[in-house]
């Protein structure tokens, strides 16, 4: 490895900024959380491609404060692939019938710009727990 550049005080903050995604994940404290439903039905309907598109969008946009996670089947197998977008202290929003392109749009519009893509939304809010 080539000799690294000697750091200055202000360079520490730059490294910290670059590593923001790492601390977000380890502290489990993101601004938003996107869950891709990856049950057998989801994967069969193309959830993997949806996930790939989502991660690609995150890397392309250099987003460091969004947590991506997976979950099992949400019970509505015929509307898969599905994804849930959640902001802190706000009800979750469920998207259905996703494709990689739709996922990219949801990410840019909803997660980055805060505008829900109503065309693809199934419902807002959580299911009732007993």
């Amino acid at each position, binding site marked *: 490895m080539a000799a690294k550049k000697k750091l200055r*005080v202000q360079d*520490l903050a730059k490294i910290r900024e670059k590593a923001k995604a790492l601390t977000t994940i*380890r502290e*489990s404290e993101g601004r938003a*959380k996107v869950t891709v439903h990856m049950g057998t039905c989801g994967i069969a309907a193309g959830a993997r491609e949806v996930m790939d598109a989502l991660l690609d969008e995150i890397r392309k946009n250099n987003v460091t404060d969004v*947590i*991506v996670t997976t979950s099992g089947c949400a019970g509505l197998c015929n509307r898969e692939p599905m994804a849930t977008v959640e902001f802190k202290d706000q009800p979750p929003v469920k998207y259905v019938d996703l494709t990689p392109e739709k996922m990219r749009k949801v990410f840019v519009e909803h997660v980055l710009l805060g505008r829900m893509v109503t065309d693809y939304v199934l419902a807002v809010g959580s299911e009732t727990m007993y």
Partner: protein
Amino acid sequence: MKHYRAHLLVCAGTGCVSSGSFKLKEALEKEIKTRKLEDEVLVITTGCNGFCERGPIVMVHPDGIFYQLLKPADVPLIVEEHLLKGRPVKKLMYVPPEDKTPIPKMKDIEFFKHQRLIVLRNRGRIDPEKIDEYIAFDGYEAMGKALSLMTSEEIIKEIDASGLRGRGGAGFPTGRKWDACRRVKGSPKYLICNGDEGDPGAFMDRSVLEADPHAVLEGMVIGAKAIGAAKGYIYIRHEYPLALQRMAIAIKQAREYGLLGKDILGTGFDFDAEIVEGAGAFVSGEETALMASVEGRVAMPRQRPPYPAQKGLWGKPTVINNVETWATVPNIIRRGSDWFAGLGTKTSKGTKIFSLVGKINNTGLVEVPMGISLRDVIYGIGGGIPQNREFKAVQIGGPSGGCIPAKLLDLPVDYESLTEAGAMMGSGGMIVMDDKTCMVDVAKYFMNFLRDESCGKCVSCREGTQRMWEILRDITEGKGTESGLRLLEELALACKDASMCGLGQTAANPVLSTLRYFRHEFEAHILDKRCPAGVCKSLIRYVVLPEKCTGCQACKKACPNDCIKGTLKDVHTIVQANCIKCGACQEACRFEAIEAQRDEAIQII
């Protein structure tokens, strides 16, 4: 830095490594590759997570799921269920002993819930071999602040105001030590990090060095600025290969980034550190002996004063602090002395790391606020005594410390309370003992260690520890006398008064503290020739209880000396004359039909 949606943090402290965490990591990486998740999921190794009892341990983020007791065979399940389908695997989670429900998240587990992390803040959170991860979690921020914004006096004032006291055992105020060294004229000045952790059952320093070596380096640079030193030595014993390796990597990375060496961070301040590998003598932990060892001489203590701050390494002013003390320093500078002093008691501030070992359910490494009660540590965090046995005593402070009995369980853990109770903070080893532990045997064990480790300079220590051990040995063999016990006490006090260094001065503590709280056990050995705990082999005999014996022959097969007689389905008997009291028969018996009898006086021939 590449973006991954999930991070798998595999614990690679010495405990987990010996239970197979490197193999586990390999298996994880392989399975992740097979599932084509290598661009989405990152696997890294961290330092000791603390819950060594449950290793190997893997944390999955961002979910914060805690998996324990993992085997490579469990890997496919975790990868498919959790990482691919998002269903955390319940059966690999921690289940509390008295409960049936698994606890998915680390922060909800009793063992972790009551801890307060300052020094160990990065344990199980960063890869100690990656400097960028340390910097990501505010690493080297305090150093930047100290070097560019603070004067030596301001740094010392801040440390002094925090109330930080030496974590190596004696508890001398760190700020005052630094100030004394700063005021002394003399050049060059040196810094030393004391990582010669030698107490049996203690592994605090090792874990800090393994989990967060950069924190120690950062603390040392701040200390160097405070006293005006340009060179530091990190003394680590060679029995700590992983700690040595990670510290060597840390030093190399810090130099590459210009965080060690000339003109650190462009502030004009120079400091460099190097590792000195110790040969592993207990006495090397004594500061003057350690300095002799760094200089290349035999590790033998010398008279103090002059203290190291006046005449230390090569006769130059030197500050020597323990690993944990150095690792605490950056946190105080970064977050302020008020924040630090907000935790703890009047005289003992902040947190202290303890290694929790012996007869305790949750063996491991814990960091707790000063002033917490022993009960909270042993029963709250430690989960109590295995098999619901009775708590008898806890040995604190290593061979120089002492035993604290059950009646003092509510004692707060701080420097003064522990010393008053006859133990000491020491570096932080806690050895928990149950009712099957013989206190005379414990005293003998520590004395054996000390007579071996005494450097031999002072007669009182060299001969004293040997003679005390002989008397203790005689007592455990049923050959003790009342005059021997009196001599033991006399020797103990003489050793304490007449020895020069900390080793000799505290060598009698195992005897004095056990005598203070468990004198009746010594007397039972001497007067009744019996060992109440059933440990001392000369004072017990194994017998078969006829009403419980089924004649299964398991004990007969286990006996290495062929001294159990009896045919199938008949009650067996042990031929006492040939019995070597190894206890193998008792372990082999499934019907609790073999008992170590100790209630009656046994004639010693």
